[in-house]
């Protein structure tokens, strides 16, 4: 009988060689992951069809923690709330802080607390949409959970995706996180009001985004001063 310590060591050696799944479970793990992705895509497609059928424009906002996703949405909503009937779905690990902030600008909001999950997925959005009378809306924004990694695994069925980073995350933030830039149509570099003070190389950030995705439109904004917010609204064709 090997003692407990030896057993642990053997198991760790096993794990090193098999990438965290037992040999016999490997296929199942791979298969399950593929199926989850496929199901998510299926639901996303369904969401997109439903929204289009009801003439609803939809935009999904992803980006780094604290980059200014909510602040920018507040500004946008403030300007266009008289023109559209807006629903904003906010994803956060916990709290209703973001939904409350946006709601104060006359948009209906729904908060989703993902708990231990680091991104919204199409099933969340599908459940919300299924239970809403879509005739009451012209425009849906979805603010994803703040991070530059997980949301790339789950498309949400929106017409457009915008990605927001900010000056304060350092000029390398874009080149270090290429995935979401590949799958977004507009890249926003926010907190431009701080650029001088921090000496950030904004041109490098713009070049990096273009290098990763030549089709992406890049715009620098400040949710604090309102700089380029109307330009962003134009780019969103709103």
């Amino acid at each position: 009988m090997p003692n407990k310590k030896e057993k642990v060591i053997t198991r760790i050696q096993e794990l090193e060689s098999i990438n965290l799944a037992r040999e016999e479970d490997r296929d199942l793990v791979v298969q399950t992951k593929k199926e989850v992705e496929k199901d998510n895509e299926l639901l996303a497609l369904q969401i997109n069809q439903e929204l289009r059928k009801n003439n609803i424009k939809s935009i999904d906002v992803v980006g780094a923690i604290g980059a200014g996703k909510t602040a920018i949405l507040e500004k946008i909503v403030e300007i266009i709330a008289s023109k559209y009937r807006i629903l904003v779905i906010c994803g956060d690990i916990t709290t209703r802080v973001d939904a409350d902030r946006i709601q104060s600008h006359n948009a209906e909001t729904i908060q989703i607390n993902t708990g231990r999950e680091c991104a919204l997925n199409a099933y969340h959005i599908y459940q919300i949409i299924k239970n809403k009378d879509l005739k009451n809306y012209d425009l849906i924004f979805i603010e994803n959970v703040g991070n530059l990694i997980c949301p790339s695994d789950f498309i949400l069925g929106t017409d457009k995706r915008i990605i927001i980073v900010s000056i304060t995350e350092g000029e390398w933030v874009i080149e270090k996180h290429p995935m979401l830039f590949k799958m977004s149509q507009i890249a926003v570099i926010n907190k431009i009001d701080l650029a001088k003070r921090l000496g950030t190389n904004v041109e490098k950030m713009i070049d990096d985004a273009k290098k990763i995705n030549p089709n992406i439109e890049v715009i620098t904004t400040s949710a604090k001063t309102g700089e380029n917010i109307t330009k962003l609204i134009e780019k969103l064709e709103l």
Partner: protein
Amino acid sequence: MKEKLEEIEELVNEIEVDILKLQSLFSNFLKKHLKGLIIENYIGEYPTFMEPVILGEKVKIGDDVLIGPYVYIGDNSEIGNYAELSNTIIFDNVRVGTNIKLDNCIVTKNCKLNFNNSNIKNCILKGIANSEKEVLKIYF
């Protein structure tokens, strides 16, 4: 909100449930009176909540649970691992087993769903049941 809940509770406890009246009270409660995210006092490990969701006192929630949209859960109720609840009222002191999915349901006070892996829709659930067959279901 409490009054509306009491009205529904009274109705589902009658011997002959007035289904039409219940349907209108139920959907009115979910869509008009249930609002926001009131989840301060639950016991559990960060489930997913899609609002509106209102939890009573000391609700116990298992792992990987998905709650909402349109869910009320009463005091001292217990939701098992992997459960999924939407468009549902759960009254006080209820138990929902592992991997049970409820949509458009009302689970009455003290009801125990002591079984696992079920998908139940569009009904009132009553009784103490160790298998799905044993639950008293009234469809609406």
